[in-house]
């Protein structure tokens, strides 16, 4: 590590440790961030990135170690104090009041200092202009896209004259263009002398604009180096602690006959959607967020009401009025939002795993605990879920391990048709690969998977077949192994003329 004098550092973290019940979240982590640099932090979920950031901003208190920010030692700070000191953090789930205007959000609680609303809006305009953001300061935040909300957060950080802005996974819900915009702003901020800590899973971004990178794993800062000294593989190896050969396993090989046929689903958002699913197949849905991908699978699964909807399995019509019917008919679902729709965070790993298969461990309406215990242990072992025991709350696990619990919950009843809506969202590289292997195994055991993902490479590399969806309709069907990506994208964007 190159020695740099303390005056060049905006923040110096020394031997910071933090323990939660049962987990050593940070173990003597030391990181220096130079003034005016963009410092990337990468690591799998559960590596300790978020914990470290929450300690810096004052949400958590460290157990030991020292933090020197801009030449001043920080002890027992609160998020408000950090803000005032010039350390801003922009969380993945943005912290804005959706029912208030842009200007009001930027100066929330500081209207007096700004000499009222008029002053607040004027100053907000100035700040937004400085980052080339044209949004009207009187617009309600609820009407903004995610990327515009991020701009508002950045303007808010600037309003505190921040010297260091921490961005926690800012790109997770941005389109490519929005990302380019953000990249521009990050460079601009750096020119103004503002330091940035950039947390991300996406290595492309790290290599694009980070000056220095720290790799974290299991609560340790494994390595800090100038980005140029890293290779991609090098970084992935350090993140997961072992070498990963490929990002995707080969597609399932044996696709059989028709397993399920869906005829003309119509809902408020969907227009006459019909498709088939074959045995042993992974079928990908490609489309923009909001195109109706999730609505299709929810209607099939009985989670949303649909008109004129019929599902045929093995040639026979199966009435599906609710998720319970779907489960009986052999469906399993990994919902889009793991925390809101998938898990009961305060409940144990075991209860979260066993909840779909209650019929298997009960008789005459009575639960047989001895059988239930086996289920939790079995799936945790089979999927190598990292957890100290099956009794800890599932909310304590990392994203990838939480997702494995949801997969395991369904494997217990061996569904024929597995619907996976964004199965690897917010999951790190190593765990992603494990989920891919699981998908392949499910398909090769004769099941079939409907895969929805916003990560195009993932759908294209995993699926045997993809359907493109645009404004509630299916606009095309492709074999991703032989089709050019831009043709598939054009179809997903609703273009009639597909480029050859």
């Amino acid at each position, binding site marked *: 590590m190159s020695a740099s004098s303390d005056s060049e550092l905006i923040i110096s973290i020394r031997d910071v440790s933090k*323990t939660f*019940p049962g987990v050593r979240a940070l173990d003597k982590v030391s990181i220096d961030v130079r003034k005016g640099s963009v410092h990337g932090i990468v690591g799998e979920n559960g590596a300790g990135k978020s914990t470290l950031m929450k300690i810096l901003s004052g949400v958590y208190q460290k*157990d*030991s170690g020292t933090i020197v920010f801009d030449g001043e030692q920080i002890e027992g700070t609160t998020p408000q104090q950090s803000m005032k000191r010039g350390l801003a953090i922009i969380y993945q789930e943005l912290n804005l009041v959706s029912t208030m205007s842009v200007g009001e959000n930027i100066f929330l609680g500081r209207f007096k200092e700004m000499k009222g609303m008029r002053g607040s809006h004027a100053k907000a305009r100035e700040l937004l202009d400085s980052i080339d953001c044209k949004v009207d300061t009187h617009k309600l935040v609820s009407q903004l896209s995610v990327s515009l909300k991020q701009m508002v957060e950045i303007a808010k950080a600037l309003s505190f004259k921040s010297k260091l802005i921490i961005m926690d996974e800012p790109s997770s819900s941005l389109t490519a263009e929005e990302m380019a915009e953000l990249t521009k702003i990050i460079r601009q901020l750096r020119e103004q002398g503002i330091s940035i800590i950039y947390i991300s899973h996406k290595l492309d971004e790290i290599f694009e604009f980070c000056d220095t990178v720290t790799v974290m794993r299991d609560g340790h800062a494994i390595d800090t180096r100038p980005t140029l000294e890293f290779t991609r593989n090098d970084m992935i190896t350090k993140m997961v602690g072992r070498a990963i050969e490929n990002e995707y396993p080969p597609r399932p090989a044996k696709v059989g006959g028709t397993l399920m046929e869906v005829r003309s689903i119509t809902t408020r958002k969907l227009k006459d959607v019909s498709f088939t699913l074959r045995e042993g197949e992974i079928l990908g849905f490609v489309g923009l967020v909001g195109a109706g991908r999730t609505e299709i699978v929810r209607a099939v*699964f009985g*989670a949303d009401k649909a008109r004129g909807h019929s599902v045929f399995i093995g040639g026979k019509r199966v009435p599906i009025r*609710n*998720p*319970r019917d*779907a*489960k*009986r008919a052999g469906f399993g*679902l990994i*919902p889009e939002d793991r925390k*809101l*729709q*998938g*898990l*009961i*965070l*305060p*409940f144990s790993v075991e*209860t979260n795993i066993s*909840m*779909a298969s*209650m019929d298997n461990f*009960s008789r005459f*309406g*009575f*639960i047989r605990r001895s059988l239930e215990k086996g289920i939790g242990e079995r799936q945790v072992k089979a999927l190598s879920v990292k957890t100290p025991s099956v009794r800890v709350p599932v909310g304590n696990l990392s994203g990838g391990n939480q997702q494995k619990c949801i997969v395991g*919950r369904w494997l217990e009843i061996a569904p024929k048709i597995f619907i996976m809506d964004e199965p690897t969202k917010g999951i790190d590289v190593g765990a992603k690969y494990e989920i891919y292997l699981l998908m392949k195994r499910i398909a090769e055991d004769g099941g079939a998977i409907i895969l929805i993902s916003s990560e195009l490479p993932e759908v294209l590399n995993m699926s045997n077949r993809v359907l493109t969806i645009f404004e509630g309709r299916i606009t095309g069907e492709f074999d991703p192994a032989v089709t050019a990506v831009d043709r598939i994208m054009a179809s997903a964007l609703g273009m009639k003329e597909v480029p050859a």
Partner: protein
Amino acid sequence: MSGIAKEGTLRSVADFMRSYLLVVLIAALVIGTAIFEPRFLSGMNLINLMRQFGPLIMVALGMTFVIMGGFIDLSVAGIINLVAVVTISLIQIVGQVPALILGLAIGAACGALNSAVILSSGALTQAEALFMTFGMSTVYSALALLYSHGSTMHFWDINKSKSLFQAIGAGKVGPVSISFLIFLALLALLWLFQTKTTEGRAIRLTGGNKIAAELVGIRIRRSIVVIYTLCGLMAGVGAIVLFSRITTAAPVIGAGFETNAILAVVVGGTTLKGGNGSVLRTVMGVLLIILMSNCLNLLGVSPYLQVVAKGAILVFAIWLDNRKQ
């Protein structure tokens, strides 16, 4: 590493305090009062305590399931009013055994009606249920007033046999009151229901996360019907135990039971967020509340101040519950 070990001990002490705070509080209350006021341990006072336990615990046990399922029920006061006046008058009309059965059926039916109103409106949040059941409570109370013409009925107005209700109200087997035995039997049943049955599990899952539960095929609508019906039924049991003990039934007899029941459940440690809780905790909660008011009475504390203490405890219990998360 000794730092970690020490931290571990501290943490387990803190965990112990959280889990058993209630037991500690109850013990402290009993010992403290017994020292300052020896009358506390007199036979008369203990019997009095056991009798007070009766109606509230019944209502609170039912309420536990509603709260565990992620909802709340303010209508129990109205249900108690209605069940009490109707049942006591039915003794005269249809005889005591049919009266008892009909009384319980009315309680259950009121609860089922609550769930039907909630489900058909689609108002599936706790806050919406709060207002819905508050509205239903006024309906049941008004029905009780209409039915009784606002008058109080006494046992001595009834010239048919009412031995069953007299036994519930004042009967004893050895030194133990019959109402206490009823409580023990119901507690055992409800505890089995909560911990051993699939429906009990479904209620917890629904309370923990309705959306997730529904997506794995849990019948959350059925669970909602079950919790409200059970709560109505237990309010009916509470009403019968109550008027049997005091041998009269006024159409306002249930006032305040909804807040005391919720207080007992929450103080016991069942979280208002739904999911986690237990009927055993509720028993502790009721015990604490009754002991507290008994102690404060014996120590001569003003009843107004006692109300303040109750409110403070409720706020403290919710505060503690939120700190845990």
